[in-house]
């Protein structure tokens, strides 16, 4: 953390760490637990220092069992706490799937809102870090398809801070997806302004304005989309980039306003495309903006294959080139 006149330079991971610390300081009922989140500070150091500062009853390690972590979080939330749990990696959240789908997502509805579950499931998520198998899954579609969950993914350092604090304060369970490849990205932020800042859950933002087509992305795909827009600008094409941020609830308004204006859209996501969040965005954009569209809504996603080994991931991940190729397919000759 280096401070300047205007602000502080933070990594994405440190922004998350600061959000946790700030919220733990503000609210006694917030507890953090998971695998290796205590003295080690988490394998990505997002919980670094929390045990030392808040004590081992506020930030602690559990036995190695994800369903156990999730189920215990449900009970703790039932009894007045606000658990923030870490699943060590995306694919290691799968053992907790039943607890997530059958209880986390359904308990408030089941009890007619009598039982609220204000808990956060933090998941270091997606690829691009040369990780081995099971450490790179883009699992957002499983959660986004499950009614009752709120699903968000920050793509910038300020959003990492703001969205996480908001997620912890949220009255309903939030799946909080942290793009691993962004953990070490840095940005200069004005923490005081952020602390006073506005809400993000449910709202998309225009990350870069443009006129000719809309790129719709979230999480790890946002920086790639921005680089594509940059490259397109050099070629004289003006692309608008939307950072979805909040997958559920989805901000139809912001997205559709943009597409209605540009008349063209490409959805970008790392996950395999089939039956995914990208499918949803494409489906709803064409449903809602059909008569504004000059071309079909296209998608640039991961292939429908298991996440590849490190030396092959470059071929898998949505790239600037692949995005620009796809933009080229948007039937410009007819425009």
């Amino acid at each position, binding site marked *: 953390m280096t401070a300047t006149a205007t602000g502080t330079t933070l990594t994405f991971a440190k922004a998350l760490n600061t959000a946790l610390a700030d919220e733990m300081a503000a609210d*006694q*009922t917030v*507890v953090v637990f998971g695998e290796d989140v*205590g003295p080690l500070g988490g394998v990505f150091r997002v919980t670094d220092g929390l045990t030392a500062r808040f*004590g*081992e*009853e*506020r930030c*602690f390690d*559990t*036995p190695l*069992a994800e*369903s*156990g972590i*999730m*189920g*215990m*979080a*449900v*009970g*703790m*939330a*039932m*009894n*007045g*706490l606000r*658990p923030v749990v870490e699943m060590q990696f995306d694919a290691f959240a799968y*053992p907790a799937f*039943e*607890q997530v789908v*059958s*209880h986390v997502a*359904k*308990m*408030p*509805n*089941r*009890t*007619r*809102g*009598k*039982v*609220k579950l204000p808990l956060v499931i933090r998941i270091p998520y997606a690829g691009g870090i040369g990780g081995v198998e099971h450490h790179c899954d883009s699992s957002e579609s499983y959660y986004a398809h499950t*009614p*009752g969950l*709120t699903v968000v993914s920050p793509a910038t350092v300020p959003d990492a801070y703001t969205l996480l604090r908001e997620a912890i304060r949220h*009255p*309903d369970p939030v799946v909080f997806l942290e793009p691993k490849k962004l953990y070490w990205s840095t940005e200069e932020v004005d923490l005081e302004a952020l602390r006073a800042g506005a809400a993000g859950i*449910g709202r998309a933002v225009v990350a870069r304005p443009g006129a000719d087509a809309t790129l719709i992305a979230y999480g790890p795909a946002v920086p790639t989309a921005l680089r594509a827009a940059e490259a397109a600008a050099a070629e004289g094409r003006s692309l608008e980039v939307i950072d979805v941020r909040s997958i*559920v*609830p*989805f*901000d*139809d*308004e912001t997205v559709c306003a943009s597409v209605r204006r540009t008349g063209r859209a490409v959805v970008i996501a790392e996950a395999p495309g089939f039956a995914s969040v990208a499918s949803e965005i494409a489906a709803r954009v064409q449903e809602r903006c059909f008569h504004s569209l000059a071309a079909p809504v296209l998608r640039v996603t991961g292939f429908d294959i298991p996440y590849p080994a490190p030396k092959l991931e470059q071929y898998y991940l949505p790239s600037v080139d692949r995005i620009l190729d796809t933009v080229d397919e948007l039937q410009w000759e007819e425009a």
Partner: protein
Amino acid sequence: MTTSTGKPRRDPVGHPLDHMAQTAAAQDGAESFMLPQAAPVQLVDPDGRHVHNDMYPLPDGQTLLAEYRQLVIGRRVNEQANALVRQGRLAVYPSSHGQEACQVAAAACLQGQDWMFPTYRDTVAVMARGVDPIQTLTLLRGDWHSGYDPYEHKVSIQATPLATQLLHAVGVAHAAKLKGEDTVVLAMCGDGATSEGDFHEALNFAAVFHLPVVFFVQNNQYAISVPLKHQSVAPSLAHKAIGYGMPGERVDGNDLAALLGVLLKGVDRARAGGGPVLVEAFTYRMQSHTNADDATRYRTDEEVQAWLPRDPIIRLRSYLTGLHLLTEQKEEEFARDAETVAARMRDGLNAEVQVDPEDLFRFVYTEKTAQLREQAAKLREELSRETV
């Protein structure tokens, strides 16, 4: 949040070689302490005679009389619910007929500040804890997933996905411990559910965090059609306890006195900071899994008949009659009380329920999402067109 309750979890890491030696040394003590007694604890035998047990004194007569009343009501609740299924008022009912002693003891061993985590089969226990019968039966009537407010009587939802609720119980206990509350949690499941991974994780978490949880397994010999021996080949289910570092105990699940003795001891121990225990009640599911099941496909009538003389009501009746505590007058009084509950069930369930389609969207999130507002509006419009 107090940090003063309970012993600190993280004392400095000792020398690992010491640990190796220590553990070996401590082991013999641990084993005799954590392994169940050689036979299930029984305090009143099937003929109604007191069986002496060094560790568990017999509860006093007045207590047993009061709980006998609950047994009678419990049996009546099971019968009435079955009748309501036949009449089409309930979609389905997983009866605890034969297991009423477990049901009654589960409610009796808890205090007001304690929590109960029941399953679909524990309707009688839920009602014995004070939850309104009609609210309890909402799930099975089919108008909502759960009909009561879990906070009102500190009874969680009747869980369907097996063993999952044990972890919620652990979480409630953990929060209680962190908040310094004087709360014990009773976590209930069946023999079949002990095979699920969540059972394992729940017991381990409770032990490692030293939480006030009493795990109460009603071993009724069957998981739907699957007999216990295809579920586990352990000497008993209570032998699982030592693998988590907690005591395990077996108890005759048709002996209300023994159940009260063992469960109360477990609850007291947990409340005093002694950590979790595992109690296995040895009992029998006298009826089919639910009314949709056909038990003749997988067990003989002789097997069922053999359990009839072990009925939990008969033996307590014999014992209390022998003591002249249970009189004919009392029996009539209890039967009337049971009839009152049954009548309440009938009346409540015979009344037509109104469901509100808007409820579909009301509780999914604290605030409806834009998407749900849209979908609700669409449904509303659809329905208004229909009624035109």
